[in-house]
């Protein structure tokens, strides 16, 4: 689909993401209606010229709510993922740097334990015990999502430690700090960033799934997750309510996945071997 010379997926991903960003950040100006204004006379209306994506059960315009709702969803997902990324980088660098030491063993054990908690299960337990809300979900995200970054970073670090440049830095008298920041971090950063774009996509999908099940943010907030939960309740009468948020979630995740693919192709331009 793309190679280093023709980064089709990278460019298209960035374009889609850019358009989405314009639509979502510009919601206050672009949205045709007030996202919270109810209109009881126009309940659960099918898509029409006035309401391109129809209306929900309170007669609110689905398109306007979708545009406004993106901000919360996107910003909170990005923030949660960044937190997970930073924790993961830190843990991975520490474990890799002190490979074989007691710190490494403890961290790896912790990672094993967290790996045995599928995110869905943890999120369900938290939703059950602490109540259903977006912030609880995001907490669960931070609690387990750093693991993948930590594992990746650790393996990159372990590879880098076998390289000549690492030995060279040691022999030249580099401190641990210098080695981490000059030798290891630069090597880890690009694979971690690529992983992050993919993980951001799957994070948004997971949150969407949980919201759809009614375990995420609750109506009436103009937020994609709660709109999904809302839509599920009225799926039989008005399936169109789901279209707006589902389409936007699809496009967002698609954009991130395309960017991830493009970046990955760029990072390791393995020579495609034909047989």
């Amino acid at each position, binding site marked *: *689909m793309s*190679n280093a010379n023709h980064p089709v997926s990278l460019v298209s991903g960035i374009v889609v993401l850019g358009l989405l960003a314009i639509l979502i950040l510009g919601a206050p100006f672009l949205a045709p209606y007030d996202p919270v204004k109810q209109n009881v006379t126009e309940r659960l209306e099918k898509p029409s010229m006035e309401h391109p994506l129809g209306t929900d059960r309170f007669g609110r315009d689905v398109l306007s709510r979708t545009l406004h709702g993106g901000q919360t969803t996107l910003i909170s997902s990005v923030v949660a993922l960044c937190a997970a990324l930073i924790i993961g980088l830190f843990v991975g660098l520490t474990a890799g740097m002190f490979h074989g030491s007691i710190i490494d063993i403890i961290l790896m*054990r912790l990672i094993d334990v967290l790996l045995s908690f599928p995110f869905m299960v943890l999120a369900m337990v938290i939703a059950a015990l602490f*109540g259903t809300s977006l912030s609880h979900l995001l907490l669960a995200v931070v609690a387990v999502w750093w693991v993948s970054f930590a594992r990746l970073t650790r393996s990159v670090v372990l590879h880098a430690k076998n390289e000549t440049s690492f030995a060279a830095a040691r022999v030249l008298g580099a401190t641990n700090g210098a080695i981490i920041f000059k030798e290891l971090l630069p090597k880890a950063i690009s694979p971690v960033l690529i992983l992050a774009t993919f993980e951001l996509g799957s994070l948004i*999908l997971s949150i969407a799934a949980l919201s759809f*099940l009614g375990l995420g943010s609750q109506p009436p907030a103009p937020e994609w997750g709660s709109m999904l939960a809302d839509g599920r309740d009225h799926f039989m009468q008005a399936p169109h309510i789901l279209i707006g948020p589902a389409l936007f979630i699809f496009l967002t995740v698609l954009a991130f996945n395309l960017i991830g693919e493009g970046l990955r192709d760029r990072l390791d331009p393995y020579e495609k071997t034909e*047989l």
Partner: protein
Amino acid sequence: MYRMLLRKLLEAFVTLFCATLIIFALIRLAPGDPVQLLLGHPGEAALSDKQAFNDRAAGLRAQLGLDQSMIKQYTAWIHNLVQLDLGTSIHTGRAVSAEIVARLPATAMLSAAALLIQAVLGLFFGTVSALKAGKSYDNAIRLACVALASTPAFVIGLFLLSLFAVTLGAYEISSEAGLSRLWLPALTLGLIGAPQLIRMVRANMLSEFGRIYVLSALSRGLSRERVVKHALRNALLPVITMIALSLTSLISGAVVIESIFSWPGIGKYALDSILLKDYPVIQGYALVMVSLVILIHLCVDVVYALIDPRIHRKREAGAEEHV
């Protein structure tokens, strides 16, 4: 070899122990008094009943062992767990373990079928994509993968459901598990997991194609099909691990699908229990899921240890590289 197996087993137990600690801590950390959660808020009771309420609460507290120290509570809980006693459901009053065991076959059936579908799709399209790397077939498969991987699971589920059940009338919605109703949820679940597998098979195949033994096999005048077999054999080892490990995500990912298709598995049971605030069930569900995941990881490790240890180490290192 046996030392290695023993170590893996020990590690699995340590992991399980830590996991029970986390679940226990989560329950204790939860806001609100479990007794209140069970009995309802005292404010809701009439004034005259206050005394009776408090008595009942104290009784329940003693009964649940909540008046004892944390360590005692934990050991008592573990003691019950060892005897496979997961407590009783508040809603139905039946043993949680019995309820879960009754629903496990449905989930197992769904996951196994989905795993099969996913593996077939992954191996077939992954190999085709690798063989046609850079050509239009490959591009189409990659594009389809990205699109599929970007679609929310419930959208796929609802789409297939409305297509087959409503439009085509080929699928009957019912809350009973049965082979005749298995195929659609299994297909949905398999489709959700397939893109990742396709991508991995493709990447592994391509990296094998670049290896010298492939060139060497070609230089011996072997046909293309032969050489592809060589590469496939080497590329498959990490893929098999990945398929095994994806079982864990299938079991947990089944929640959405079970909910949409009213499939009576443990995922749907847990989901219903959350809405009913049936805490012992949630606890039991989490424990069963975590134990299953640990068991699957253990099995993969053991099987790998049984295969040539050198290949094992090399492949493990290789598998981690794939982003």
